[in-house]
């Protein structure tokens, strides 16, 4: 499969990181800051272990998202129904056994777990409860998809409220739901996210828009191919496409119901053409790959192949809509099961889609791809550790170097001081850009100041209030909003706020990224220089040129070890701002609905009167959502972003300082250590050489391979933009 080289690299990375950690923690030939290093290694390991390609399946209800995922997984693990089915976000990833892990926001009561156990005992599934009763694990020892599907039914289906009311308290407290399975269909580094139909509950929708889409590598959007013109969630789709600014896969599912001439992936005719026409009419950028798919046929074909579905059952399945001629010829063939499976698989158009999807993930969507970053880290860290070993080896092989080392002490100190000065100047510059201040006699606005300039009442009026009013005046929207108790109005306001805030965030991200990038480049170069100093300690004549050489290599490695850590740590410490904003918008919308409902009885008002009455309400609510919250304990969006920016700037500054300190201290301590060990090195040369050589080989091997992985990846870091 296409993805294998990545998997191999990941496995190798994990062993490499294990070795590095062992070396850092226990090896006497390591002289650096053990806790600091082991923490950084551990962090990378977590990323490698956890970092998956996230693939999100989105779409209206009943368009076959779960069915298609099941086809990917190679078995009907997720519940499917001809009516609205999935009610919860489910994460699916590879594991050793087939199990479902539920995390609850408060411990499960004995009563609940007993009920669940009783339910599970009906189909060979068992329950494990964590000590704090917050995590429940449902295992299916027979690895049977049917058992897992049954176990999921009371937890993730819409029907559950009706059929399993006694599990309602459990469902309500579900924080996350992860399905692990050991299937060949699921690669180690892929995480699928199954979502409920996008129209579903507002909370889920917010979570999907702000959290899940933002943190995923690929969005696969499902549309029923028979109803392409009826897309009821165009606004949502528009947002998904615009906010991602990268490819979205559109799957026109249920293609088995189309006439053959309608299936035209080149989009010259049929539903694909209709879809593109809809995009064009609604100013949606055409950034999509369009596929036709019949997820149901693909799944059935797979089940036939696995022997989970008999040929008779397949022939009895009306939903497959087998053409009579095909059915007859297959019935009379030598291997009906095989032929039927092959026919269905071919008709499903599943394989080309799957291939394209994986190809995209591996070859195009490298942003946040874990392997690349971790390989860089490993390459740089192992090179770092090699320095001490090589220095010692060099001195052991030629002890006269000690004299040169001592002689060049002053030059070394001078270089260290100049590195510190350069970084401190850059840092001062960064602080001005972060907090605002004066530079070269000119006033520079800080992050928060720039944010405030974007989030003004005027901007809000122009980007939120006016578009909503324009919308109200158009196409009877006002009437419709009144009829539906202002819900469409609330939705529209939510949508506009959404767009406005997304734009502001995008602009701020650009500003922050630019200043962080500049700072990072400078730090990277200086840290690179410090590292060069260290590696050349025993070759003083080269040491003095370290800066020049490093600036050359600085181009190649835009961001040194310091950079990889600074970037990663900043991200981890600050987290995502998204979920908070989702909640703030949700709360604001509730306010608008409450206030507008009071007007409902005024049937006699003219449109103008309505608009003039609604305008202040819209203004006030948008204002509350964005600028200042009504309740003291709710934070406005502006405040949330401000806090985020403050947090991010401070964390970044700290990370840079720590990294610099670490780099400079290690040069100093390397130097001190070498001189300290002079007597030992002189007297026990042979022993030291035989001890260090294998370590040198091992670390050099790791470094070389990691570097190859990095070089194979041609895309620039940190993002594909």
């Amino acid at each position: 499969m296409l993805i294998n080289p990545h998997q191999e690299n990941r496995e190798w990375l994990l062993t490499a990181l294990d070795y590095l950690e062992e070396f850092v923690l226990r090896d006497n030939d390591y002289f650096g800051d053990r806790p600091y290093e082991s923490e950084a290694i551990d962090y990378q390991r977590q990323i490698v272990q956890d970092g998956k390609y996230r693939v999100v399946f989105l779409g209206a209800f009943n368009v076959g998202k779960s069915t298609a995922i099941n086809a990917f997984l190679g078995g009907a693990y997720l519940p499917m129904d001809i009516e609205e089915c999935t009610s919860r976000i489910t994460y699916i990833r590879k594991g050793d056994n087939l199990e479902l892990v539920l995390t609850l926001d408060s411990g499960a009561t004995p009563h609940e777990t007993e009920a669940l156990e009783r339910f599970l005992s009906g189909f060979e599934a068992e329950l494990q409860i964590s000590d704090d009763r917050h995590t429940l694990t449902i295992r299916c020892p027979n690895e049977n998809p049917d058992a897992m599907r049954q176990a999921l039914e009371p937890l993730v289906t819409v029907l559950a409220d009706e059929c399993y009311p006694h599990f309602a308290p459990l469902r309500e407290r579900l924080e996350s739901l992860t399905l692990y399975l050991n299937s060949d269909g699921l690669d180690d580094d892929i995480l699928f996210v199954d979502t409920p139909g996008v129209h579903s509950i507002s909370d889920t929708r917010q979570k999907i828009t702000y959290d899940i889409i933002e943190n995923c590598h690929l969005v696969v959007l499902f549309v029923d191919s028979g109803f392409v013109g009826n897309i009821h969630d165009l606004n949502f789709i528009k947002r998904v496409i615009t906010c991602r600014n990268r490819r979205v896969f559109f799957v026109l599912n249920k293609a088995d119901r189309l006439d053959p001439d309608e299936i035209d992936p080149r989009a010259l005719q049929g539903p694909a053409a209709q879809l593109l026409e809809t995009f064009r009419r609604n100013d949606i950028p055409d950034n999509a790959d369009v596929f036709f798919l019949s997820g149901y046929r693909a799944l059935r074909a797979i089940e036939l192949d696995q022997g989970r579905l008999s040929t008779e059952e397949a022939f009895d399945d009306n939903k497959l809509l087998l053409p009579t001629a095909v059915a007859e010829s297959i019935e009379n063939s030598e291997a009906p099961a095989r032929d039927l499976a092959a026919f269905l698989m071919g008709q499903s158009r599943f394989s080309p889609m799957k291939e394209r999807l994986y190809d995209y993930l591996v070859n195009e969507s490298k942003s946040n791809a874990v392997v690349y970053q971790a390989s860089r880290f490993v390459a740089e860290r192992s090179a770092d550790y090699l320095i001490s070993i090589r220095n010692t080896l060099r001195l052991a092989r030629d002890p006269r170097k000690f004299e040169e080392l001592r002689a060049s002490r002053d030059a070394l100190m001078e270089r260290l001081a100049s590195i510190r000065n350069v970084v401190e100047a850059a840092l001062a510059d960064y602080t001005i850009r972060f907090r605002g201040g004066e530079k070269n006699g000119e006033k520079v606005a800080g992050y928060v100041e720039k944010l405030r300039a974007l989030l003004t009442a005027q901007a809000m009026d122009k980007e939120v209030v006016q578009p909503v009013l324009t919308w109200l005046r158009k196409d009877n929207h006002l009437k419709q909003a009144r009829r539906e108790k202002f819900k469409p109005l609330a939705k529209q306001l939510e949508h506009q706020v959404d767009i406005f805030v997304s734009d502001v965030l995008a602009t701020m991200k650009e500003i922050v990224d630019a200043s962080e990038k500049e700072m990072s480049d400078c730090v990277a170069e200086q840290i690179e220089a410090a590292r060069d100093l260290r590696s050349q300690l025993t070759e003083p004549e080269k040491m003095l040129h370290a800066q020049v050489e490093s600036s050359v290599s600085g181009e190649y490695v835009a961001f040194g070890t310091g950079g990889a850590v600074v970037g990663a740590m900043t991200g981890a410490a600050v987290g995502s701002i998204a979920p908070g904003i989702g909640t703030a918008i949700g709360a604001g919308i509730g306010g608008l609905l409450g206030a507008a409902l009071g007007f409902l009885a005024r049937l006699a008002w003219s449109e103008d009167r309505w608009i003039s009455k609604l305008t202040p309400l819209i203004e006030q609510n948008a204002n509350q959502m964005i600028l200042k919250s009504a309740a003291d304990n709710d934070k406005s969006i502006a405040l949330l972003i401000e806090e985020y920016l403050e947090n991010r700037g401070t964390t970044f500054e700290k990370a840079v300082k720590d990294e610099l300190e670490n780099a400079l201290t290690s040069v100093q301590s390397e130097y001190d250590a070498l001189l300290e060990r002079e007597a030992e090195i002189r007297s026990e040369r042979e022993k030291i050489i035989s001890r260090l050589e294998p370590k040198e080989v091992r670390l050099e091997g790791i470094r070389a391979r990691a570097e190859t992985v990095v070089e194979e990846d041609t895309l620039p870091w940190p993002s594909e933009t």
Partner: protein
Amino acid sequence: MDTLFTPETPATLLPAAVFSGDFNTGKSMLINALLHREALFMSREESRTPPVLMAKSQTPEIQYGARMENSGETMVLSRDDFLNARKTNSVPCDSEALAVLLPDMPFRHFVFVDTPGASSLENRPAIPGAATAFDQSLFVLATTLEYWPARHTISLIKEYHARFPGRFVVAANMAEQFNAKEIRRVCDRARLRLERNGITPAPPVFALSARLELARRFGEDEYRNRIKPDVRELCDCGFDAFRVMLYEFEARATIASTAYDLDNVLGSPLADAVIMNQKGQKVC
């Protein structure tokens, strides 16, 4: 079924069955299947057309006509003109309503009204107001078995239910694409589902397949043969029940004595009501 009728209505009002629903749900095919003929243009492409009124003709020929946008006059059309008036998205059309009179229309008194399909929640047809002209009308919301409980369909059902209580039914088309077990389950749950949404008493929901019905009328058909016998039977029963319900409604209506011609159909208050309510989003 007995909630469906309003017995005391003036005899001057035409008894009608008004079909509405999203495009692509098979409204036209549903009507064609009821009429046993392909009287209406069917396409998966989105088309904006004026409402079409269909009634029994007194002459042996099929008659096509249009009511002109500006003058309100009736114009006789050829079959080709009639079909073209239905079709295109881009060419403007100057008729505000179309009519077909069919000699072999199986309903003697009923006027069928095909309303333009809608493509999304934003530009769905304004639901006709509770005009007097509709007092003898039955409203049929065409949707699909699969999507009938969708949010927007349920909200349409709510509104029809509120305006035309007891004179409104749901035809869940394309039932042939599912297994018998699934069709039965959806039907069994339909009433409960509607009542949960506050729609009481729940209007009848017919699971049927217009495509199979047409095939049944036109003899041997590969598509019909593909469908498993139990599903075919369910769909046929659903369609028969739907047809019988229409016949019953027609039988109970108060009938005007005049025979139908293009003028009295296109000039009727019923046509006025249909057109008036379409004005808001007419493309033509």
